[in-house]
Structure formats: structure tokens, C-alpha cells
């Protein structure tokens, strides 16, 4: 046997071992209680795909042994099948942490329902990992793309997957801090940004500050003894690419903030400012994320346009004024390329463009607004202050479940304006502690989400059962 064929056989055997290990792992973990039904769907997908890989590779053994294929052709042929193996490992990795004890079960169903109302034919898997990171990632598009190049039946494994599958990560150690989870609306903004291809609309309209790039290149090249026209062109291209990359990625973040504000209203604003200020430097940025000060500036601007913030509770008015003052100050970055990106984006016409573009992408019925907020403060906040989870409203027998967004906004209102009053109803050990009162509030809000979801699920099951009788 020649070297190529020997290695091909080893390759097949090794890949089959990987596939077998995946099948065994799924067998081991698939009976765990998962908070999202999609977790089991993913595991079934992995099992089916791994089984298909194993049997496809079995038939490839003969091909590798005796076919007249050239080594390069054989390599390509095998690679079509085995290249998807790492995807399957990644998917299993994500399922870890979506078990019920690790992810708050009360949150998952309402969140799933909400995501499906925003993006049809979608599903979510929520997992908790230790890192302080909220994220949402759509995986079906990349899975379908990778599997489309594989031979059947492997290529058909994706048939059962939903159109969109969002892998949502929430930090495990604060999984019960439901108010902060409003940050997920920003992450949902990423999904909508991609779905509506907002990049195509926004980026061509944003002008990068060429003058600043030229100036920067001049500063760098001045004094260079061996500077040549070519190195200057190359440097200019490099700086332009770096700035363009920042602008592109930062616009995604800023747009996602805007979409989040449209979907979740002030709750996202309060969650973002709370979370960002707890561990981020206000002016530090990266190539992927703009400085928090710019993000807060845009969010404050939008909030003030969409809501009568000057008529809110004095605590909120003061808070928003403070953020407006701070975010209005000059952003001082360390890197000149960051500064050029900021100068390109921190302009009224650009911020207006982002606002209008994202508004067009969100249906009216999904937008949270000033009228809804007023109603939630009027109807839900008194319930919370009287130790009742605001999960449903209305006369007995005709109660209506309260929407997730309304519950979270009412929770934020109490947290920021009336936490002491809320805490006074708790046991004395919690009454004098702001942290203990906040814990009590988070749990009450989770209970409200649970009651709301029970009401919706019960009615759905009742209708289904009545249809069955017919």
C-alpha cells in the first residue's frame, strides 16, 4: 500500500473514532433535563450526522483502498465528509450549560416565545457559562452551508433544523439576575441586523474621514529615512482597512443597541448602562466594540427622542441626565485608528441614519413605546410593591398574561425608583440591605415571567385538548 492510501485509511479510522465518540457522548447526555426543547433537537441532529459520517466513511474505505483516484482527489473526497466533525463538537459544547439546574427554567420559555415572535421559524438554546458574557449566535446558516457540500445522506441531516437557531449565552453565576438579561435584546438586535441586511444600507452611507487617515499616514512617515511612495500607499491602505473594519463592526454594535431599545425600551438602556459601567472603562474600545461612551450617547439620544424622559420619576431623570452629560464629553481613545472610527461615526447625520434604518426593520407591534411604559408603571409597579408578581392582569376568569418586556421594564422601574419601599416588605434580614432587596425583586420578576408563561401555555394546551375532542 502506498503512503497516501495508508494515511487515507488512518484518516478514515480516526474520523470514525471521532464520530463514534460523538454518538456515545450524545447517548450519555441526551436524557438530561434541558431548559430549551431545541437542546434535544441539536443533540439528535449531532447523533444523526455522526452516524451518517461513520457509515459514509465505512464505504470510503473501499474507495481509499482500491479506486484509481489521485491522492489529491482522494483527499478532497474524504475532506467533504470529515470537515463537519468539529461543528458537531462545537454544538455539543454549547449544549453544556443548558440543563435546567444551570439555566433558569422560568426564563427560557418566555424568552423562547419572545424570540419566536420577533423572528418566525426560529428556536433558541439558552446555556449558562461561567464567563461574564451575554451573546446570541445564529448557527443554522453556517451549519447548512457546511453540510451543503457534504455527500448524502449527511447533506440531508439539516432538514429537521429550524430556519434560525439562536444559541444564547448568559453568565451562569448571575443567571437569576433577570433585569440584566434585558441585554439579550441587544443580542437579538444582531440577529435582526443580519436578517435585514442592514449593513448594505448603512455602510455605503457612512463616510470614513479620509483627511484624518492621510494626516495619520503623514505623521507616521514623516521622519522615516527610507520612506518610499509604495510604503506610504501600503500604510495608507492598511490604516484605511483597519478603520473600515472598526466602522463596520461598530455600526453593527450601535445598530444592535438601537434595535434593542426599540424592542425592550428603557430596560435595555438601564441594563446596558448598569452592565457596562460595572466592568468596562468608558473610553476603552476594541476592533469589534466601540467605546461604551459612544454607545451610551446614542442610546440616551434615542431614549430621549422616543420617551418623555423629563417627566419620569426624578431618580430616572437624574440618571439619564448624568449619562447624557458623561456621554456628551469627548471620547479619548488610545489608538489613532479608533479615534478616526469615532470621528467617522460620532456625527448627527450618521446617528440619525442608524436610528431610521433600524426603525424600518422592526414591525410596529414589536416596538416598546412610551404608552406601554406608562401603562406598565401604572398597572404593574403597584403589584410589585404589594408583593405580587405581575404575571397577569384582569378580572378573574379573563386574565391576560403580561408580556416579558413589560414585566422587565416594571422591574427596572422598581429597582431604580422604589427599591427601598419594596425591600420594606421583606423579612428584616433583607429589609435593610439593598442587595438583598434586589435579589428579592429579581426572584419576584422571575416568578412573574413564570406565571405569565403558565397562563399562556395553559390556554394553548386547553385549545389543543379541545381540538382533540372535536
Amino acid at each position, binding site marked *: 500500500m502506498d503512503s497516501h492510501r495508508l494515511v487515507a485509511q488512518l484518516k478514515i479510522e480516526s474520523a470514525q473514532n471521532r464520530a463514534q465518540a460523538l454518538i456515545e457522548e450524545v447517548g450519555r447526555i441526551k436524557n438530561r433535563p434541558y431548559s430549551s426543547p431545541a437542546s434535544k433537537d441539536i443533540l439528535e441532529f449531532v447523533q444523526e450526522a455522526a452516524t451518517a459520517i461513520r457509515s459514509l466513511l465505512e464505504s470510503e474505505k473501499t474507495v481509499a483502498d482500491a479506486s484509481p483516484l489521485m491522492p489529491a482527489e482522494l483527499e478532497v473526497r474524504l475532506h467533504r465528509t470529515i470537515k463537519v466533525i468539529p461543528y458537531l463538537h462545537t454544538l455539543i459544547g454549547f449544549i453544556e450549560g443548558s440543563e435546567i439546574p444551570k439555566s433558569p427554567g422560568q426564563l427560557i420559555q418566555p424568552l423562547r416565545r419572545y424570540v419566536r415572535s420577533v423572528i418566525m421559524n426560529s428556536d433558541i438554546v439558552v446555556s449558562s457559562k461561567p464567563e461574564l458574557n451575554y451573546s446570541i449566535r445564529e448557527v443554522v446558516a453556517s451549519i447548512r452551508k457546511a453540510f451543503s457540500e457534504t455527500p448524502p445522506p449527511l447533506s440531508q441531516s439539516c432538514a429537521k433544523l429550524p430556519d434560525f437557531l439562536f444559541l444564547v449565552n448568559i453568565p451562569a453565576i448571575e443567571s437569576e439576575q433577570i433585569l440584566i438579561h434585558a441585554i439579550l435584546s441587544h443580542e437579538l438586535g444582531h440577529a435582526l441586523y443580519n436578517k435585514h441586511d442592514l449593513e448594505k444600507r448603512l455602510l455605503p452611507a457612512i463616510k470614513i474621514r479620509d483627511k484624518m487617515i492621510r494626516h495619520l499616514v503623514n505623521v507616521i512617515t514623516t521622519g522615516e529615512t527610507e520612506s518610499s511612495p509604495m510604503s506610504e500607499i501600503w500604510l495608507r491602505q492598511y490604516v484605511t482597512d483597519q478603520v473600515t473594519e472598526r466602522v463596520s463592526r461598530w455600526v453593527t454594535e450601535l445598530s444592535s443597541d438601537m434595535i434593542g431599545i426599540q424592542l425592550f425600551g428603557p430596560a435595555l438602556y438601564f441594563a446596558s448602562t448598569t452592565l457596562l459601567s460595572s466592568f468596562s472603562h468608558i473610553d476603552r474600545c476594541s476592533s469589534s466594540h466601540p467605546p461604551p461612551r459612544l454607545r451610551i450617547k446614542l442610546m440616551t439620544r434615542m431614549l430621549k427622542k422616543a420617551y418623555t424622559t423629563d417627566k419620569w420619576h426624578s431618580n430616572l431623570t437624574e440618571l439619564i441626565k448624568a449619562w447624557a452629560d458623561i456621554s456628551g464629553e469627548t471620547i479619548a481613545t488610545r489608538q489613532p485608528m479608533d479615534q478616526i472610527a469615532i470621528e467617522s461615526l460620532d456625527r448627527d447625520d450618521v446617528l440619525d441614519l442608524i436610528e431610521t434604518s433600524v426603525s424600518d426593520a422592526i414591525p410596529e407591534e414589536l416596538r416598546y413605546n412610551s404608552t406601554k411604559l406608562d401603562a406598565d408603571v401604572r398597572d404593574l409597579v403597584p403589584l410589585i410593591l404589594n408583593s405580587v408578581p405581575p404575571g397577569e392582569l384582569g378580572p378573574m376568569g379573563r386574565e391576560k398574561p403580561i408580556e416579558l418586556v413589560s414585566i422587565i421594564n416594571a422591574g427596572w422601574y422598581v429597582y431604580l425608583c422604589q427599591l427601598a419601599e419594596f425591600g420594606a416588605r421583606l423579612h428584616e434580614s433583607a429589609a435593610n440591605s439593598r442587595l438583598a432587596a434586589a435579589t428579592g425583586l429579581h426572584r419576584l420578576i422571575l416568578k412573574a415571567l413564570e406565571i405569565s408563561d403558565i*397562563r399562556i401555555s395553559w390556554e394553548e*394546551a386547553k385549545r389543543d385538548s379541545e381540538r382533540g375532542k372535536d
Partner: protein
Amino acid sequence: MILSAEKIKSLLESPPSDPLDRLVISPVLDVAKQLKPGTASIDLRLGQHFYVAMRTKLSELNRLSEHHQVNMQRYKDETFVPLGDYFVLHPRQFVLGETLEWIRLPRNLAAFVVGRSTWGRDGLIIATAIGVHPHFSGILTLEISNVGEIPIYLYPGFSIAQLFLMSVETAKTLVEPTPSAFQMQTSPRGRIVDVEDIDIIRSFRKLRGIAHDKVE
């Protein structure tokens, strides 16, 4: 005086304007089935949270032990069973469950909770700390035990207990009660509360010469 189902229904349908006088039971998923005319209670359903004893983690529960608080934290593992799913309770197994409903009592009502006899006949004992005081607000913890011989499937949403409500004679000057340790509990996890007079009990042991017993 124990309130009739009709009276409970009218209190829930037409709540008084003062929030402190309001009775809240949420959600009541089927008014006709949970408040049967002619009865004197409202049926409560099994909730979605369970706390299971971790036998493998603990050798004993001893409230006099200095490590009691730590042991109690190790003692139970929380699990969430969504509607449609089930929890299997094996013979002689004990679990803390909860009512699906959030209960808030006004200042002029007290209550007691008992398991429904239909479950008792299957060997399921739902012994709760049955008295509920005025002003209580929270879910009710159900101490569920299978004393039968056969495993029992528990489905959240099952009607499992009954809440009897009684009017409370109040003094002319209303006293705002101190919130209890179980106020606003949202799951059976609850709080770890020291037994009252525990120091006196400890002293008994010392005075009667039995303090040398090992109490860890």
C-alpha cells in the same frame, strides 16, 4: 369563620380598593374547577419547582449542630419541571414542592392548606406547614412524601391541595406585622431559619451533663 367558595370567588372578582385588603391567588387557571360551588376552599395546583434531598451529601440533619446552616445548603438540590413534564416520587422519598399559585392574604384573612384526599389514597402525603397568616405573600411550600409502595408521577399543574380561608377578627388598631422569614418566597428553597430558643436547648444539654455527646 371559613369562607365559602362563592365568597372566595367574589373577593377575587371584586377586589377592595385598598391593596392591603386584597386577596390575590394567581394564576387561577380554571375558575369552575378550582372553586366548586357549595365547597369551602379553592383547589391549588402543583408548581414547577422541586427541592430534592441529597442523601449522598449528608449524614444527618441536626439543628443543634454548628454546621447546620451549611448542611442545609448542601441538603437539597433544586430542579425545575416545566408543565407537561413530570417528577417521579419513589416510595419513602421526600421532596419539597410548591403551589403553582402565588398567594397573598389581606390583613383580615388567614388560611390553612391540606392535601387533596384523592392523592392521599395513592400514598401521597402533602403535609404542609398548614397555617398561613394574614399578610402572607408567596408560593406555599408543600412537603410531599410517598408513603405508598409504588412510584408516583407528579405533573406540575395537577390539582393537589386545597386552601381554606378564614376571616380574622382584628383589633381596632391595625398592627402591621413583621414580615416572616418565608415572606415573598418564590420557590420551595425558602430560607434557613434557626429554631427559636435553640440556645436554651443547648444549655439544657450542658446542665444535664449530656453536652459531651458529639454534636457536629
